[in-house]
């Protein structure tokens, strides 16, 4: 559980630079990358919660309490109540005082440096309404994993107060583009703690996490055409999975983690195939005289949603995962793309062109009506958080590509603030790492 979570940077074609120079360039991660809030509507009920500064947290590389507060607030389900004063997990909590400040729950804790260099993060969660201790926890973490340790505190609080799993300790992959350089990043779900998995002079698109969160599939143009790769995030080892004649793209992991659906043009038009995660002979799933691309699995693996222009413009269809007859899913508007299915299989998010605007939408499955989640006009590539409560997506209406998160009702959004580079193609990783 407490393994270090390093990702290994890979540099493509750095021949004219010294190795040290290339590493220095790769280390130029967007400095202060962090999701900031843009609350665009009032959420439903928000639980008022106080998170006191953890005792001695200033001795650790990060402020645990600040990370926890920001996590809880971004989820949209909590309102943060001020918590002045010094407390830790041993403090006798004066319930009435805290209730007087309007808090329903209180987290207190401490950070202690251990002899082996790790930090012991301890905390307690109090239910102030019922006047009882909900839980006490202790978790030792390497200095490099302190952000992860803080996010795990957030996850524990979230789960205890909402009954659902938190996603704060999950990760997000995305691509940045600066002039002449594309980078595949892996960051914490709050946009911080970024590390680079791949640096290339050529475009990278469509990253997709394996169900176990250990591998990333993506499309790289490093060989001057689109090829699907799978890369182990921890070791940096990578291999070509689909490198056929024409274009190889749109990787989507089967929930079994052993195969991927991909879009290949090896027989002419782009069609959907299944291929083993180690490559090999692809099996054709669609057989249409049109474009079929952007496969997305239903979480139980029974069906594949995909985009096809068989009816004229691009629309979303679904078919059995083994192939077979397809059924149209989107009917409103002439351009509906990029389907992604919530982890419970009950909701589809996608992008729809409305007038000249490309807008993030949601649609209950199997046959509900589409609802806009955003009112902006340059939305792209949505990806569900593993608990299905949030989506991450790209917005490029401001002349630059930025990453956004939103609650699935669209009420609370946050923007990943960065310095400079375009950020795009986000993929939210699974639980666990």
């Amino acid at each position: 559980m407490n393994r270090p979570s390093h990702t290994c940077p890979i540099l493509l074609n750095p021949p004219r630079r010294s190795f040290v120079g290339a590493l220095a360039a790769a280390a130029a991660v967007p400095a202060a990358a962090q999701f900031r809030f843009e609350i665009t509507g009032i959420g439903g009920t928000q639980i008022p919660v106080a998170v006191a500064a953890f005792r001695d947290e200033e001795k650790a590389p990060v402020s645990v309490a600040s990370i926890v507060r920001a996590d809880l607030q971004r989820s949209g389900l909590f309102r943060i109540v001020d918590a002045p004063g010094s407390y830790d997990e041993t403090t006798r909590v004066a319930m009435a005082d805290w209730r007087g400040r309007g808090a329903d729950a209180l987290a207190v804790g401490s950070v202690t440096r251990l002899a082996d260099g790790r930090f012991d993060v301890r905390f307690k969660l109090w239910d102030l309404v019922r006047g009882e201790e909900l839980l006490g926890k202790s978790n030792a973490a390497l200095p490099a994993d302190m952000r992860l340790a803080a996010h795990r505190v957030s996850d524990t609080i979230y789960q205890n107060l909402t009954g659902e799993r938190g996603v704060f300790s999950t990760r997000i992959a995305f691509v940045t583009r600066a002039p002449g350089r594309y980078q595949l990043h892996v960051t914490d779900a709050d946009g911080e703690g970024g590390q680079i998995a791949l640096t290339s002079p050529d475009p990278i698109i469509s990253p997709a996490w394996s169900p176990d969160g250990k591998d990333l599939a993506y499309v790289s143009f490093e060989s001057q055409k689109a090829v699907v790769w799978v890369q182990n995030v921890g070791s940096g080892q990578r291999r070509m999975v689909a490198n056929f004649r024409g274009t190889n793209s749109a990787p989507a992991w089967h929930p079994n983690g052993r195969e991927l659906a991909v879009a290949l043009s090896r027989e002419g038009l782009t069609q959907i195939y299944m291929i083993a995660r180690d490559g090999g002979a692809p099996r054709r799933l669609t057989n249409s005289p049109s474009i079929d691309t952007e496969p997305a699995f239903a979480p139980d693996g029974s069906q594949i949603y995909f985009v096809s222009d068989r009816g004229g413009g691009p629309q979303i269809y679904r078919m059995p995962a083994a192939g077979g007859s397809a059924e149209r899913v989107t009917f409103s508007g002439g351009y509906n793309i990029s389907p992604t299915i919530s982890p419970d299989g009950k909701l589809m998010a996608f992008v729809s062109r409305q007038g000249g605007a490309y807008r993030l939408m949601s649609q209950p499955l199997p046959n509900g009506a589409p609802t806009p989640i955003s009112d902006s006009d340059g939305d792209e590539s949505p990806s569900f958080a593993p608990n299905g409560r949030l989506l991450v997506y790209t917005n490029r209406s401001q002349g630059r590509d930025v990453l956004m998160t939103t609650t699935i009702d669209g009420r609370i959004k946050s923007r990943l603030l960065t310095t400079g580079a375009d950020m795009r193609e986000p993929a939210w990783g699974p639980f666990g790492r």
Partner: protein
Amino acid sequence: MFNYRTGLSAAVCTLALLFAGCSSTKLDEEAPVESRNPATAAGTGAGTGGATGSGTSQSGVATVDLNKSGAGDANAAAMAQRTIYFDFDSFIVKDEYRPLLEAHAKALNANRSKRMMLEGHTDELGGREYNLALGQKRAEAVLKSLVLLGVMETQLEAVSFGEERPVSSATDEASRAKNRRVELKDK
């Protein structure tokens, strides 16, 4: 042996059917040429200007204009053109690109070991993956056109960069039109 002339004219007929608006296209008409490259215009102009036949006129003077590269050689001029532009949301190879395709087909037919990449591109509107497939469809349309002109399919590979390699990053329609293209590249 492949009879180039018969083969080519047959292929041109088939090709004409493939083109958009082919019903209104007469094969004996001069194909409209793209205005951005003056070389082709110079080439066809030289043919009609004067010394076409032997002995029809003794006072005809053919003009050679060195300001226009490839003057007097329509084929070389067409060969120099390597980009085919597309209308919005369209995969149709317009008739005006017939000279370009014929010139490249001729070179590929003359040398069967010659290989070409056909790179499809789109403008930035819409999704990256869908645009990748759109660019591929454009590149495949050009590939089919060349195959109909006698080129072996094994000499060609159609690939796509979708919206990832725009010529222009501006978002006005003129810039977008330049991005909707297939580039013919020697391999």
